[in-house]
């Protein structure tokens, strides 16, 4: 089998600030195959967006990748020159952001911003680029595309802007589309439309998608694989089915319990107690231990390693280790 389209290996991203080093991403690994959809889930500050920005190397100051490799078609993005990197951005890997209200430059028209992306990465001339821009707007379902081209972002609604963002991201037919919480800032009805649009475009254009969200429910049906992140580490990964119906990390369980439409209607929603870990002072052991109901002594001192639950499912939780160990030694008694 050929190597995956994108391989992230032991990625560490840090933000050195005055009072120390904010360790936003702490050694994560994942692969993305051509045409697949990968979901990354986690609460705010879990390192989802930083992972996405690391892949495109568009980290905000003073963030930088301190360790690890990001292989795109077997070439390491981390070691690319700025020129090579620009050939990747927008052309091979593109991204759409959380807040369409602020992601478009307020002083330029929609056309200006769309054409810019097209001219940068394709051999089209200005006129062809304009045609392409129009075509893209039609593709993403913007009404009155001719008129919209001439408008400024502030004249468009949120959903419309996100469609423009998607058009811009897909204009050069990238292999990978990173969607960084594309629906969080939108109304619920618009959210569904945008997700539908993305699925539709995926089947039309065949790009791979990295779907970042804090809302498990949003991506359930779309993703081939889901990664659950906490404090810059991957705590669980697997198919959507495994993650939803067989969660094996206490954090994932907590996350599922706090989704309104997922929890059984008669049950109370259970929020995860406590607050996210301080990335400036990462604790030893499992980062989630302090908030975890099932925390054991080992969780406080040792970081759990990722173990396979089955071929479609891996988790990094000491509980699994304990249970496996228990099965190994007491399996007979338990069975008998």
């Amino acid at each position, binding site marked *: 089998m050929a190597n995956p389209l994108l391989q992230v290996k032991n990625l560490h991203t840090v933000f050195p600030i005055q009072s120390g080093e904010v360790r936003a991403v702490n050694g994560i690994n994942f692969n993305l195959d051509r045409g697949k959809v990968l979901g990354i889930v986690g609460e705010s500050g879990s390192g989802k967006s930083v992972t996405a920005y690391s892949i495109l190397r568009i980290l905000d100051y003073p963030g930088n990748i301190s360790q690890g490799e990001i292989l795109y078609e077997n070439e390491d993005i981390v070691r690319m020159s700025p020129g090579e990197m620009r050939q990747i951005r927008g052309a091979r890997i593109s991204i759409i952001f959380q807040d369409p209200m602020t992601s478009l430059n307020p002083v330029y028209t929609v056309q200006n911003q769309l054409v810019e992306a097209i001219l940068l990465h394709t051999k089209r001339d200005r006129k062809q680029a304009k045609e392409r821009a129009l075509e893209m707007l039609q593709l993403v379902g913007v009404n009155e595309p001719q008129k919209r081209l001439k408008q400024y972002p502030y004249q468009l609604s949120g959903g419309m802007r996100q469609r423009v963002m998607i058009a811009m991201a897909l204009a050069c037919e990238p292999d990978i589309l990173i969607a960084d919480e594309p629906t969080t800032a939108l109304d619920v009805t618009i959210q569904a439309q945008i997700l539908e649009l993305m699925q539709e475009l995926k089947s039309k254009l065949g790009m791979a998608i990295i779907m970042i969200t804090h809302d498990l429910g949003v991506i359930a049906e779309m993703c081939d694989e889901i990664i659950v992140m906490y404090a810059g580490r991957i705590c669980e990964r697997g198919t959507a089915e495994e993650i939803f119906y067989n969660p094996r990390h206490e954090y994932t369980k907590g996350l599922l319990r706090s989704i309104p439409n997922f929890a059984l209607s008669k049950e109370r929603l259970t929020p995860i107690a*406590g607050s996210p870990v301080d990335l400036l002072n990462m604790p030893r052991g499992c980062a989630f231990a*302090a908030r975890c109901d099932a925390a054991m002594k080992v969780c406080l001192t040792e970081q759990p390693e990722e173990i396979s639950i089955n071929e479609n499912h891996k988790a990094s939780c000491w509980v699994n280790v304990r249970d*496996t160990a228990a099965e190994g030694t007491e399996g007979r008694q338990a069975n008998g």
Partner: protein
Amino acid sequence: MSSYNPSVPPEKKPFSLQLDPRMFEPATAEEKEQHDVMRESTTFFKDGLRRLFKNPLAVLSLVILGVLVAVILIAPLIVPYGYSQIITVNGKRDRTAANMRPLTYSTLEQEAIEAGQYVFPHIFGTDEIGRDYFIRVIYGARVSLMVGLFASLIVLIIGLLYGSVSGYVGGKTDIVMMRVVDIIYSLPDTLMVILLSVVLGQILGDSLQGTVFAALGNNMISMFVVFGLLYWVGMARLVRGQILQIKNNEYVLAARALGAGPGRIIRKHILPNCISVIFISTALQVPNAIFVESFLSFIGLGVQAPMPSLGSLANLARSALQIYPYKMLFPALGICLIVLSFNLLGDGLRDAFDPKLRR
């Protein structure tokens, strides 16, 4: 299951059975709490102070201002000269005591020293009519600082009252009050200061004689009046903006729902939340006032002679600049040091207490 040997630390092999089973006992709540290495939780104020004291420039300017205030307060107690006192030796006026260089003595003083008398040195020399320049600079700094602080205080009080009423009451009152602010805001302040200083100086005439304000003179009073009339609008806008923003927060609504009166809401909920912004803005008003004072001194509308201010001293020094450049240097350095310190302190306060205020 292998036996556990307490003296051998367990190896980290997650899949092996060599793990210490005791490690898999549930962790207690305390253990979990210790594990959660959160930064010690502090109050907003403490946290701000901590950040302020981590800022070397802010600390330096605090130290400079502290030393300056100490010198200003202590020096007049030590130096035996007055700011308006022409130097005399044993009751005799000494013509040679004018325009002396720093740390030199006049002919009469020299004689007195030779006769065994102690003459306090003229650290910065003397001015053109034989007054000790050091003590004049000290008093000048005192006046400039007082002017700065007092003017800022006036701005603070008026702006705070006006802005909070306007912001809190809202509606038509707010619209009318803000129109007034708009108009005052669009008046060119420096020109109005000049105009009003000219006029008030004439109107007040001798009416201040015998009051505590006499020493400062009409011009300074005019300046305070002008600050009270014009410069408060910026503060009023700031306060109103803050109040409007806070007023609509849920906790204020909650307080109102519980039956809290407007006075209580302003005192308990609104002021504590905008106090840092207001405080920072006031600190930054001080150098502004000192600038205006030195500007007015320059065009001849400053403090009343013989009272010195740093601005008027620097201005007086211009006439003999080539001969006595140091006379310019001392008050000029004084102004720059004070203004710089307040600017840096204000910036430091802003960064420490309200990073969002950066504009």
